[in-house]
């Protein structure tokens, strides 16, 4: 018995979303009175991996094998299942991030394990059965999944819980899964990173704007606040459709779904298709001239006012706040 978390590294660095998954795994292990073990595939330094001890991981299994430096769903599923079997883990935890969304269902099939895609809370156990909450209908409701199988797979929604770090140090052990070259089916030809900005899907703070800004030339104030806050920028589909902003920034039903700690919406009406992508945010701030804008119904804090007057003040006040803290 153990809880196994799958921890992704990218260019040798542990992904933030995976730290959350490892923390989630440790919390479950603690509740069950068993060990939290992490699996890392691909090149990384043992010193870095030992820091997973800070979120409660006892032991890290490390396949320091360059073939794993690029994600391949088939080969990864094989390796993770093997680790689950050798450690006797009845639960596998991973992030519901880009790779996790594909790896987890493959694991569910391989391990014949009930699976929760996008858990937002820790499981509640009742004997061998676990119940786990997940958002459905674009955040308009939650479903409580009941996992009856002996083995279980949980993919944790990014930003669902904030890891508390202690000063534990994990032991790191070499692991060589029986994966053949033939199991690797994809050849990576290149990557195209949007540089200079914080990736929207991972951002904790997001400043977003819509048609209320009148034109692309007015985004300077959005960029400035975002830069000061260390936030990512996002937008409504309406402004991406007219090329005021790039499409990879558009959030909502047909765009990205994000769950930052803070989502600031400036000049966005709050159409249901937009809300679908953001209403999992912890705190929502809405700035809009129209007191009837539907977004206020989903907001925690609101300012009924003109963005062109409010934003310069917001930037000024934030700068003051930052220099004082």
């Amino acid at each position: 018995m153990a809880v196994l978390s799958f921890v992704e590294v990218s260019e040798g660095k542990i992904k933030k979303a995976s730290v959350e998954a490892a923390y989630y795994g440790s919390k479950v292990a603690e509740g069950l009175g068993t060990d939290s073990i992490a699996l890392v595939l691909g090149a990384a330094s043992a010193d870095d991996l030992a820091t997973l001890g800070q979120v409660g991981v006892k032991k890290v299994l490390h396949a320091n094998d360059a073939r794993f430096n690029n994600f391949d769903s088939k080969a990864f599923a094989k390796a993770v299942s093997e680790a689950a079997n050798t450690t006797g883990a009845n639960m596998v935890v991973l992030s519901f991030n880009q790779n996790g969304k594909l790896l987890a269902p493959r694991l569910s099939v391989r391990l014949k394990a009930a699976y929760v895609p996008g858990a937002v809370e820790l499981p509640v156990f009742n004997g061998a059965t676990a119940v786990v909450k997940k958002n459905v209908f674009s955040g308009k409701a939650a479903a409580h999944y009941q996992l009856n199988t002996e083995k279980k797979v949980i993919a944790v929604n990014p930003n669902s819980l904030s890891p508390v770090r202690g000063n534990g140090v994990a032991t790191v052990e070499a692991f060589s899964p029986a994966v053949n070259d033939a199991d690797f089916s994809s050849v990576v030809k290149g990557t195209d990173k949007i540089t200079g900005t914080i990736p929207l899907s991972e951002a904790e703070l997001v400043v977003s704007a819509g048609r209320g800004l009148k034109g692309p030339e007015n985004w300077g104030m959005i960029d400035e606040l975002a830069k000061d806050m260390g936030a990512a920028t996002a937008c409504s589909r309406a402004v991406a459709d007219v090329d005021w902003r790039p499409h990879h920034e558009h959030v909502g039903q047909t765009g990205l779904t994000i769950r930052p700690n803070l989502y600031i919406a400036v000049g966005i009406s709050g159409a249901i298709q937009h809300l679908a992508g953001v209403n999992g945010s912890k705190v929502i701030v809405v700035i809009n001239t129209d007191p009837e804008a539907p977004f206020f119904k989903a907001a925690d804090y609101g300012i009924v006012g003109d963005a062109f007057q409010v934003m310069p003040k917001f930037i000024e006040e934030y700068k003051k706040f930052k220099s004082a803290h």
Partner: protein
Amino acid sequence: MKILVPIAKVPDTTAKITFIENNTKFNPDGVTFIMNPTDEWYALVRAIELKEKQGGEVVVIHVGLADSEQIIRKALAIGADKAVRVDADPTDAYFVAAQIANHAKTENYDLIIAGKETIDYNSYEVGGMIAELLDLPCVALVQKLDIENGVATIKREIEGGTETVEVKLPMVVCAQKELAEARIPNMKGIMGARSKPLAVVAADATEKLTVVANYSLPEKAKECKYVSPDNVAELVRLLHEEAKVI
């Protein structure tokens, strides 16, 4: 090229979400159901485009009851050649994936293009499960897909960008936005759809892995706290001291 496109049926996004039977069942009363947008706009259209270029056949498969006929006919009207409906209530992703994999096993598809997720459960699972059941390669969150000489060149979303990969067919692809431009069925398509084959097959007995114990709605509507536009300092204070997010 023989391409299989699994299509799901979902409540329209603007539908009012309520539950019945002690919050254990979704209430379909007065809800309009549509083809899952990702399946319709991206997976199906890209499959049709590939067929138009290279020849072959596009088959749509749906696991669902007889009331799904309308969305299946729509897929045929958009340009699929034939359809299969597995006659069962799709309550569990593993069950659904197993039905589709069982069909695919005997049909030798070169390519299976699913959607990345359905807009009701947002679970991103059926495509990956089909791939694992068939022991096939799979790439998800696909924004671009070209096929040449039996090799797929794919652009997929990764954190903060995209990655281009090459994979040998057969494989499973999970589509997302940008893969194609949605098509609206024209009159000829709609008329033609009526005579295209739609086979209804019985479901295979397969276990279900996951059950939904019950549903819940957000506890209470959020109460928005208003701050005056002349006092933005107060907003910053609240975000720091009360919400603790900055």
